[in-house]
């Protein structure tokens, strides 16, 4: 396991103008190192973007090295998001951190934060078809992991229902039954697409990743699962964390 990427105490010490420049130079080297390392694992996020994200990370964590679930949950703009839990959960999910491990952790460092963010990088013009396909798979995997909370490789009906329920929880008058029924119907759909010749006594345990890919086959991901990480700093726009 790689050592988590740590920022030393300078982060907290940078109160005088002198140390600010020292901090930046020190940090730049670290960020560059981070960039290099992330490039190794095929994360195409530029140094500027990493800097921005790091600034945001510190803002969220309250200048700590690591970030906890509570930090993220207290973001006011996220409060209206119906699938807030899943999104936050995804950040603490080790499967999304490119480390080949399962399970979740309570705290993540900046590098993990970056790793998760890197799922949303847009494709570039230079990418080949295979690279794009791999990227697509990666994004699908992210979604899949979001559903598959117990990490058994399938999305069971219960898990799926929960997702749909959360998704609809903010849209007003739709009851739980409706959400369940929708999840049921969606599940049936997956089952019927993937296992058309199912025996009478067969039981469809859940959606595997292959089935998941299959069902979302024609869906264009390119226009959906992307964020243009900004090069310029927008954190001044008062959308920060309320507690900091």
């Amino acid at each position, binding site marked *: 396991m790689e050592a988590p990427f740590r920022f030393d105490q300078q982060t907290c010490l940078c109160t005088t103008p002198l140390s600010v420049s020292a901090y930046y130079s020190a940090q730049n080297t670290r960020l560059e190192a981070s960039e290099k390392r992330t490039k190794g694992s095929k994360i195409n996020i530029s140094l500027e973007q990493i800097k921005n994200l790091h600034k945001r990370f510190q803002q969220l964590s309250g200048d700590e090295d690591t970030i906890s679930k509570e930090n993220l949950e207290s973001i006011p703009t996220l409060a209206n998001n119906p699938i807030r839990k899943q999104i936050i959960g995804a950040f603490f999910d080790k499967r999304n951190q490119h480390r080949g491990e399962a399970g979740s952790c309570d705290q993540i460092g900046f590098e993990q934060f970056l790793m998760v963010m890197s799922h949303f990088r847009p494709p570039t013009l230079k990418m080949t078809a295979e690279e794009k396909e791999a990227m697509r798979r990666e994004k699908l995997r992210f979604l899949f992991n979001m559903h598959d909370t117990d990490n058994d490789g399938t999305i069971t009906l219960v898990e799926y229902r929960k997702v749909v329920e959360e998704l609809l929880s903010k849209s007003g008058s739709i009851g739980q039954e409706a959400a369940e029924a929708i999840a049921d*119907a969606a599940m049936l759909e997956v089952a019927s697409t993937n296992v058309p*010749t199912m025996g009478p006594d067969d039981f469809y345990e859940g959606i595997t990743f292959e089935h998941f890919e299959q069902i979302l086959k*024609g869906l264009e991901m390119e226009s959906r699962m*992307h964020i243009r990480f900004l090069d310029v700093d927008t954190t001044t726009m008062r959308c920060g964390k309320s507690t900091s």
Partner: protein
Amino acid sequence: MDLCTMDLRITRQRGFLLFIFTCSSLLHGSRGEIPSKPTGGVTILPPIKPDNGPQAFPDAEKENMPVFTMNYSRIQIPFEITLWVLLASFAKIGFHVYKKITVWVPESCLLITIGLIVGGIMHSVHEEPPAVLRSNVFFLYMLPPIVLDSAYFMPTRPFFENIGTVLWFAVVGTLWNSIGIGMSLYAICQIEAFGVQDINLQENLLFATIISAVDPVAVLSVFEDVSVNEQLYIVVFGECLFNDAVTVVLYNMFNFVAEMPVVEPVDVFLGVARFFVVGFGGMGFGILFGFTAAFTTRFTSRVREIEPLFIFMYSYLAYLVAELFSISSIMAIVTCALTMKYYVEENVSQRSCTTIRHVVKMLGSIAETLIFFFLGVVTITTDHEWNWGYILFTLLFAFVWRGLGVLVLTQIINPFRTIPFNFKDQFGLAYGGLRGAISFALVFTLPDSIGRKQLFVTATIAVILFTVFLQGISIRPLIEFINVRRTNRNLDTINVEIHCRIMDHTIAGIEDLCGQWSHFYWKDKFMKFNNQILRKILIRDNRAESSIVALYKKLELQNAMEILDDVSGDISAAPSVVSPYEAKPKRKFLAPDLKNMHDILSKNMYKIRQRTVAYTTKHALPNESQSKEILIRRHASIRRSLRPGSFQSSVVPKSHKYFSLPAGKSLDSKFPPGMTSYADDEETMSEAAYPSRRSRLVQPARSSSSRAMMPLRRLDTLTEVHSVDVVDEKVGDRRRAARGTSRTNSSSSRDPRIPAPQRHHSSADNGRGSADNFRNGHHEEEEEEPQPLSPAPSWTAEPREDAAQNPLLRRPQWKPKK
């Protein structure tokens, strides 16, 4: 010119044109003759029994009362207009007689060709073309329908996702083209050899503005056919719409400037300021009228017959008022349509909605057809001033500046786009820059004070013919050849819908996490505002409904319809898919509720339908093939169920199974978790969503599964369902059978719009029953029972009761009908 004749030769080979040719010449002949007839009264016969009664009013004159009179001058204008419209419409019919030709040759080409032919005939008999295309007529009557058509059918979601790029290309791109072409042409004018030194800069700019209005109808229909990626499509679509607005503003400005002897620098700044005032002013009026229209339709539920009128009146009003203040009327009507569409379509009834769509489409396409048609006619009949140098350079510059513009502007906008345009997309964009109806109309309505108007008209026609014929015909093979990125638009499954939403929310959430603001953020905010405030004010029946639920309802409805018709084991799928949703705690229904069921149901139908018709060409109505598809599928499933042997075992317990799930309980409360089998449910789902797959491999699996599932279900029924239900089932069953039969009859006629109107035509009783069925589960039939019909009498009286009870007997009855 030789281009056109070449095309003429090609099209004439098709043979069918002969028909139109004769048709048009006939029409033309009659048109030509009529004016020559005496327009005074012509007496042919004595009056019919004049002495039959007392003479009411004695003649002031000595003449007898004429029996047959003709007063052509009185009707001349509307009469000629009608004939022209009719002629153009006949031409359109003609094109679609032979399907292949419209695939390869854009309709605008064919229309121009017909116009050329008619123009040729008129020219040979020295007939003047009607003076329909005057400035006022064009701007007040022909332009609004065209623009309303594009605006109303603008796919909203992709448009707002790409609004920046669309406006960038529309505004900056048009300015780029106008100024670029204008300046270069002005430079050309300085060359003495061409003999056009008298054209000054203002006039050149005016002309350049005219020919920078792109009108890629033909391109859009090609894009749609090959389903190019959404981004490219919407940028071309939006560009053509807003570019019209920009062009007209520039046109008016330059028109004004062209008359001024000297242009001072301050005028330039005033012009820029005016440009923005005009644009944003138009937008403001549009939004104002859009919301007013939406608000008005909130109250029109009692006057359904004039409901569609409001839409047209308000959009036209927006246009006229904007025109009154000389601000951009196109912007006004476009924003008006965009604003009101969403709310209006939710407020009005399904029929009104259909009417609105049809009429918008019809007016728009007729206006455009006429313009193209006149383009052809005018090309022949008008006096041209042909100047090789000027016209060829115009062509060259129009092409070069468009290409350069796209290249440069994309480089600037690409860093701001999530998905940048690649070179193929850019090629599509640049090559899709056809010039069309708007350019022609603008140049034709130029004031006569412009010295070289003839030359401008000729050059514009040359540019239009060149682009429409050459680019319009070649774009399809080229797009297919370079293999532009495509989007699959026909995904209509619940999973896709759910995941689209999940992705939207995820992205919005992650952006919140990053502290970045972008359109997802704004979309989220707007949706919130929309749901909390706008919908409450503007929509009568305000129930926030997510698109997943809409889709789900559609699939559910599809399912329910299949259950109604379908006679075989598929019905076992019903409880798990239909009733958990319907088994709501609300079980008592008030009379108004029941009455509304019907309405709600049909409304949901149209909402669903409208979701699927985001993309339409200017020349085609929104396609309703989807509901047709459902019918065909149902048809197929019935046929399959009629096959001997497939139903033998499944028939008896069918009704039991159907009612096996008690209200208020969902699937897993009945089956122990983990035991739920989807074996037979999958059949229905696959039928709903994947017809082809089903027809291939379903047969063996189906019979076995339905047979095997029976005992289990039946046991459940016996333990859980009251005996009351059994009686009730029979009623339901019989009713279902009756409805099913009628549906089959109608579905055999394959009317694409069956599902919705069908319900309207059925009797109130039946309609209520079916609505009840769909919405509230079959258990509600208990409540409904006392009102419409008592089960027992009809149960005994109806001869089909027996058949209904025993489906084995019922099914043969269907057979002869097939």
